[in-house]
């Protein structure tokens, strides 16, 4: 029962990865692509938690912590560059 629910949740996450990538590849403005990159990073954190659950190894969650830190830094650097203030 619970495994079926996690399987459906994984399918929905893969679908949302593709839908966010559509905006990344189409986006007319650089700002739109940065937003899509941020959303793809957040979806990847969920995907890593799902992979750790499927593999049964708690050590994989450390990768997600590193992801959370660096998406924050990357988006702030891009915003400062666009604002001409880096």
């Amino acid at each position, binding site marked *: 029962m619970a495994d079926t629910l996690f399987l459906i949740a994984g399918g929905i996450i893969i679908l949302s990865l593709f839908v966010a990538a559509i905006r990344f590849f189409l986006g007319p403005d*650089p700002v739109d692509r940065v937003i899509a*990159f941020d959303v793809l*990073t957040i979806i990847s954190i969920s995907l890593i938690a799902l992979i750790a659950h499927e593999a049964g190894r708690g050590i994989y969650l450390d990768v997600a912590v*590193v992801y959370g830190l*660096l998406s924050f830094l990357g988006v702030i650097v*891009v915003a400062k560059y666009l604002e001409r203030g880096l």
Partner: protein
Amino acid sequence: MLSVIIIIALTILVLAAAILAVQTTNLVVAVISAGLVSLMASVGYLFLSAPDVAMTEAAIGSGLSTIIFFYVLNRVRGKDHG
């Protein structure tokens, strides 16, 4: 079954982001696409049972090198490119 679907999705996204990074003329878009290549490759390393490589690739390939590229783009900011 789920892992095979995830691998196929990651493969498509990595190759599409690499082609966009090489092909576009806007330098900001090119640097962000190169960051997306590293991001998706580092999710793929988890399937190859290499969490240490995934952690380093996420920290350096997707975070630190993007910061260095934007620092350089700020230094060479001209009139013919963004």
